[in-house]
């Protein structure tokens, strides 16, 4: 049952071959069996899930269900879920029961989907290995001595071990694409503004974007149809029609021009990963696409720029965690200052504190122009590189991450070594463009992702390009032996 596509599950539910309760129980059983070891879920919402499944079965029996009614999913624990702990993997929010639903949760609920639980992540989505979670690291189902990537590592591990048929993630600097690459998934970070950020706990507001993490481009398209759309409650949501992302999956790739940025294939890239990615690109050529070498000359500025913009925004966003209105509060504060500093000092983990401090410094008097303003100028240069490239090409391809999954503790000593995990994903967030990672092969038994970057609001084309590759390859169907 856990090897079926969303389309197959939907048909089975609509025809009554299986009930949503049976399907939900099957996944809950798998979670019970495997989560103890993987640590992919922070909270399993078993009772709520079975109630939602019963309601879905009722709708299905009355032929009132939609295509995704009765299908379970896992939400990253960054999406507020009314009445359910929403921790963002932080001690700060360990006891935070969300008083309202994120728009994304509201949308999956109204589609009749069943929430299995809330997945583990790096604390406040700050990390690329899921090692900063207050609830402990998540293991990669492909090799449990390795990280699943981050920050959406729990969703990635849950999907790779088939503990959910589909999941949500968020991507501020690569947090959907990099774990998708490390766990053999199809993950899509849409254009900034495509999916509502309302109720999605903010890290860096000008970069954060939610998206699907799935077993195929087709499944991702199904969830995109539900997640996307304008939301007046998100001031940066874009009011623009949502196409049916499944309608164009079968379009031909004849004449498609693929840009290959030379900066994506140089120093820093594992040669074995490069080989996998180059093989995938050759396959596209065989499918009728044209290849064109391009340049994104400011790529090297992406990580430095990001580590001003993102921390600056996070230091501002996380100032709301003050120990007064919600979240962790220190015992017996002697005065208000003590209440603030100790609540925050105890509630936040090391990486979060480090980023708040960098952001605070970058925004402090006398440094604003040198850091924040400069970073915003660099951001424009990075964006303009892409605009220029898209005058000549339809999509851009390269690796999603410089290496396959790495071992626990390998990159925790120096924050900057960890930041380099995102060298190929971060500029896409700075530019606000959509990007995907799709399974493209393996290196020593560990998955490698191919990244496909599109022009603004070109999600349908990305999904089409990914789907066509998945018609000719079976990498995306591979499951780690222990979880078959």
């Amino acid at each position, binding site marked *: 049952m856990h090897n079926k596509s969303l389309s197959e599950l939907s048909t089975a539910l609509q025809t009554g071959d299986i009930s949503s309760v049976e399907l939900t129980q099957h996944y809950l059983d798998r979670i019970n069996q495997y989560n103890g070891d993987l640590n992919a879920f922070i909270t399993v919402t078993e009772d709520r899930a079975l109630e939602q499944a019963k309601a879905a079965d009722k709708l299905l029996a009355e032929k009132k269900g939609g295509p995704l009614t009765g299908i379970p999913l896992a939400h990253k624990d960054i999406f507020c879920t009314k009445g359910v702990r929403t921790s963002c993997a932080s001690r700060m929010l360990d006891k935070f029961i969300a008083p309202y639903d994120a728009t994304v949760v509201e949308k999956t609920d109204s589609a009749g989907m069943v929430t299995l639980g809330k997945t583990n992540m790096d604390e406040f989505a700050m990390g690329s290995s899921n090692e900063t979670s207050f609830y402990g690291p998540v293991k990669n189902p492909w090799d449990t001595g390795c990280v699943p990537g981050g920050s959406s590592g729990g969703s990635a591990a849950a999907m790779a071990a088939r503990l959910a048929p589909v999941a949500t993630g968020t991507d501020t600097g690569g947090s959907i694409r990099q774990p998708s690459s490390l766990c053999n998934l199809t993950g899509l970070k849409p254009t900034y503004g495509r999916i509502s950020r309302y109720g999605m706990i903010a890290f860096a507001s000008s970069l954060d974007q939610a998206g699907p993490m799935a077993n195929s481009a087709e499944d991702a398209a199904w969830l995109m149809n539900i997640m996307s759309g304008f939301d007046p409650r998100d001031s940066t949501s874009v009011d623009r029609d949502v196409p049916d992302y499944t309608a164009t999956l079968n379009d031909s790739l004849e004449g498609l021009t693929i840009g290959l940025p030379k900066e994506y294939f140089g120093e820093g890239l594992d040669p074995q990963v490069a080989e996998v990615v180059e093989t995938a690109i050759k396959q596209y050529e065989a499918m009728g696409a044209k290849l064109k070498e391009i340049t994104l000359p400011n790529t090297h500025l992406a990580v430095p720029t990001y580590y001003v913009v993102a921390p600056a925004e996070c230091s501002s966003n996380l100032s709301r965690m003050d120990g007064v209105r919600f979240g962790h509060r220190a015992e017996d504060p002697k005065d208000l200052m003590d209440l603030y500093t100790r609540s925050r000092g105890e509630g936040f983990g090391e990486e979060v504190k480090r980023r708040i401090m960098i952001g605070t410094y970058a925004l*402090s008097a006398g440094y604003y122009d040198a850091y924040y303003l400069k970073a915003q100028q660099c951001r424009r240069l990075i964006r303009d590189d892409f605009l220029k490239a898209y005058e000549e090409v339809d999509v851009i391809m390269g690796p999603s991450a410089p290496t396959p999954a790495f071992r626990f503790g390998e990159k925790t000593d120096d924050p900057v070594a960890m930041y380099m995990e995102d060298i190929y994903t971060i500029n896409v967030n700075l530019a606000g463009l959509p990007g995907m990672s799709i399974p493209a092969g393996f290196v020593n038994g560990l998955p490698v992702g191919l990244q496909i970057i599109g022009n603004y609001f070109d999600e349908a084309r990305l999904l089409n390009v990914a789907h066509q590759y998945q018609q000719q390859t079976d990498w995306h169907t591979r499951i780690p032996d222990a979880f078959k």
Partner: protein
Amino acid sequence: MSLDKHDVEKIAHLARLSIQEEDIPHYAQGLNNILNLVEQMSAVDTSGIQPMAHPLDAHQRLRPDEVTEVDQREAFQAIAPKTEAGVYLVPKVIE
């Protein structure tokens, strides 16, 4: 440009974060590594480049000035660490 112990203490104070005395050197090192990384930006001439705050160069939308939210004070205060009679409680601020 390198942050010392005093700088880290000042930044932690501005950010309202208590940091253990013995952890300061560790934070100083991490922050300095990041600042060295960020320093790469200064090699680029950005004179005349308009700063970019939003990826789509969009502007804030306005909505009609109407009440759209219902009062949820009780729901929101139910998750607060300490409240009384509808207000949030903090240590005494005014003597």
